[in-house]
């Protein structure tokens, strides 16, 4: 018996599109060893996901495997070339879910919403192992217990939307492991999860891998995760292998320029931005621009924001960090009065020195305030109207507020586009013609079009590739210095917070558990939750793995 589970040689997968042939995977070779983890890393569009799907022949149309070999080594010593099997053949179906199982990024949409989780796991057992209903149900409860889902006997009959993101991913893992596969392919399984949940899921995969001795092919764009879990690394760029090797060599002696760039852009976010280090410290005595006192917002029985008090000073960036459900987004929306808070005050100091309570403002005064406080959203696709040209998107706030029209509007839009680094010649194009990073720039241009004084940025860089992230943050900081902006920067990513923010507030279950200067919170946290959060973040250095020995918060 060899130790190799899967050997891929010169794999090529192509998509025939109207604009020509896209070589999504272009001559990729690698192998996965039993009991080892191979991390495939690359940015969006690098072909890492297509590579994974090619192995099971589940590439979406019009994708097609055109060349290469994918040799699966079975425990009995026989081998089969998966590339030779027809995607609909009985042979490949017997491999899927039985010998090679796969888990996906979005545990919500990757499970059927209208079937119970039990039904979806039982199906695999019955299909591949021919179990009867009763035995399959019993085994499913065992599996759910195995992946540490509480009260598995009742959980089995529940639907996916009744579970949290982390629990759903556990269900996916239970489903994938149902038939003891010899290879597990995990396609960004933790990207949609919080860092602490991510750490738990990574722990679980590691533990199960050790128990079952399976090979794991782990696809991710997060170099931190790679450093934490990989034995071997495959760096992909534009469908080709940029570099591959043992994890230590990749991180500490990278050969390829692209690998170096990837690692440096992650390491860059491990410390404060250069332009912030160079900036003289802000005068602490300045009157606060915004003072939030005892803000509370309830949704029915749930208190989403619970007695939160914050201060934003002119020209500074206040980071709000917390996991999903911590109330940080709700808090941000209260500032713009998208939601009407139930209690508390938000004293906002206008340019002329007068103070207004945002919670009380209404009518014209609220409209005026909304010109001064703007928002940048997380999803650069969803937050731009696909039927409006970029000029219309950016110019809309100016137009609806009656500030500019016609020729003047056109000039202003062009100016704004230049300011955020977009070519004004593109202003008649529609958002779909732009890349993710460019779309986020459009969102920023729209936010600054009314010369605001405060911008609430809700996860503004989360949807972007890591190499773009630092660029976007640099742009935001540059605009801050040019326009004298203040930011409330909401993020779950402590790296981004550290890079850009002057002060940080840590939110947990609706409350602010800790506030302080970024350095103080990141380097010497005082609250246990902050410590747990920081220790769950994968560090991009395989020599200092820490998430398996992380600090856990039981509050």
């Amino acid at each position: 018996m060899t130790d190799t589970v899967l050997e891929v040689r010169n794999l090529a997968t192509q998509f025939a599109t109207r604009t020509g042939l896209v070589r999504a995977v272009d001559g990729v070779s690698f192998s996965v060893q039993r009991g080892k983890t191979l991390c495939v890393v690359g940015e969006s569009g690098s072909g890492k996901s297509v590579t994974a799907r090619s192995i099971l022949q589940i590439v979406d149309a019009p994708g097609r495997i055109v060349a290469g070999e994918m040799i699966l080594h079975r425990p009995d010593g026989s081998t089969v070339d998966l590339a030779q099997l027809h995607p609909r053949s009985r042979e490949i179906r017997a491999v899927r879910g039985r010998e090679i199982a796969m888990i996906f990024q979005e545990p919500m949409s990757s499970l059927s919403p209208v079937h119970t989780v039990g039904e979806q796991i039982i199906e695999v057992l019955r299909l591949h192992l021919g179990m009867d209903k009763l035995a399959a149900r019993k085994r499913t409860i065992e599996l759910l217990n195995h992946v540490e889902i509480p009260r598995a006997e009742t959980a089995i009959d529940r639907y996916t939307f009744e579970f949290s993101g982390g629990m759903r991913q556990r269900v996916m893992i239970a489903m994938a492991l149902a038939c003891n596969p010899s290879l597990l392919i995990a396609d960004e399984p933790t990207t949609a999860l919080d860092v602490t949940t991510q750490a738990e899921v990574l722990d679980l995969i590691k533990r199960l891998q050790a128990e079952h001795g399976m090979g794991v092919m782990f696809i991710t764009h997060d170099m931190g995760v790679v450093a934490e879990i990989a034995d071997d690394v495959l760096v992909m760029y534009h469908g080709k292998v940029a570099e591959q090797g043992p994890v230590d060599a990749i991180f500490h002696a990278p050969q390829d320029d692209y690998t170096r760039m990837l690692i440096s852009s992650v390491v860059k976010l491990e410390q404060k931005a250069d332009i912030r280090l160079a900036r003289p410290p802000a005068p602490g005595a300045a009157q606060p621009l915004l003072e939030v006192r005892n803000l509370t917002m309830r949704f029915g029985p749930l208190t989403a924001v619970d007695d939160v008090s914050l201060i934003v000073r002119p020209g500074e960036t206040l980071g709000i960090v917390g996991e999903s459900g911590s109330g940080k987004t709700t808090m941000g929306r209260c500032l713009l009065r998208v939601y009407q808070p139930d209690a508390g005050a938000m004293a906002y100091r206008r340019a002329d020195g007068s103070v207004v309570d945002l919670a009380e403002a209404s009518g014209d005064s609220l409209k005026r305030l909304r010109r001064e406080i703007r928002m940048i959203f997380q999803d650069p696709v969803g937050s731009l109207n696909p039927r409006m040209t970029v000029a219309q998107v950016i110019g809309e706030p100016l137009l609806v507020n009656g500030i500019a029209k016609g020729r003047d509007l056109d000039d202003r839009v062009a100016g704004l586009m230049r300011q955020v680094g977009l070519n004004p010649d593109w202003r008649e194009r529609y958002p779909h013609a732009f890349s993710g990073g460019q779309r986020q720039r459009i969102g920023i241009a729209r936010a600054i079009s009314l010369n605001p004084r405060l911008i609430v940025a809700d996860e503004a860089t989360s949807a972007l590739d890591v190499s773009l992230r630092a660029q976007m943050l640099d742009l935001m900081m540059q605009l801050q210095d040019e326009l004298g902006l203040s930011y409330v920067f909401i993020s779950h990513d402590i790296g981004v917070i550290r890079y850009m923010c002057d002060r940080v507030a840590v939110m947990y279950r609706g409350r602010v558990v800790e506030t302080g200067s970024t350095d103080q919170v990141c380097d010497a946290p005082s609250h246990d939750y902050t410590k747990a959060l920081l220790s769950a973040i994968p560090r991009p250095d395989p020599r200092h793995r820490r998430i398996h020995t992380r600090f856990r918060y039981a509050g």
Partner: protein
Amino acid sequence: MLRFLVIRLVWMIPSLFAVSFLAFVLIQLPPGDYVTTYIATLAASNEVVDQNTAADLRNRFGLDQPLLIQYAKWISGILIAGDFGLSFEWQQPVSELIWERMALTLVLTVSTLIATWAIALPIGVYSAVKKYSVGDYIFTFFSFLGLAIPSFLLALVLMYVAAVQLGQEVGGLFSQDYVNAPWSFGKVLDLISHLWIPVIILAVSGTASLIRVMRANMLDELNKPYVTTARAKGLSEFRLLVKYPLRVALNPFISTIAWLLPNLVSGSIIVAIVLSLPTAGPMLLQSLMSQDMYLAGAFVLLICALTLVGALVSDILLALADPRIRLE
């Protein structure tokens, strides 16, 4: 669930009252009343009715009383005795007139529905799965053709073919011998042999639009990640199609029940008139034209009641079919 049902049912009562009153007022809105129409019909055949007779008639029908009193009498008759009043034109109790027609309409609608779904759903799924294939284009072509042909034209063509080429008796749902005969096995067979023409005509346009809807629904679902998950499990293509995307894609059809029921009365009037079918639609039209207000009122009331019941039924079915929907 039970609480939801009770609340919905209680809410139906004021809605029905409001709608029945509005319907009553609307029917009376055109100038004149049934007697005016009646006199005009008689005048067309050179019979002259003097003012006294007209007043007499109005008195007898209760048409000289204020609107509110007429409404009160009508609605209390329905509530207390289940008496929907007398049709002026037919000189028969409205309830007798309506039920037979409603039963036939129900038979026709259900047969049409089954035919439509049986043809459209598989074709819709095929078109979605084999998007932009030759088969898809052929079906798309025919479904647009079906959408484009007005159903009364199709009715005329089919009647011509059936009568001239097949020598079959067309029009209506029964042969001469059975029209007024009591129900028997022979009459049922006769009904079945007459049913196919209206069913085909009504199904053609329905099928065409349903194929488009089904294709679009399926296309939305086919690219969902849960379909990929099912494929990665090793399910066969057919099984995973039926179990996952089709299941979700069918949900929108449950909502169509909401407007299926009121369509029983008011749907496909033109086809029914062309084919002289003894269904509810033509009678509703006729009663409105002759201002036969109790008959028209009963129909409008029925449409409203069916609309409300249909909405309730589809809400309940949706909640049963889709666990994400909770009735609270």
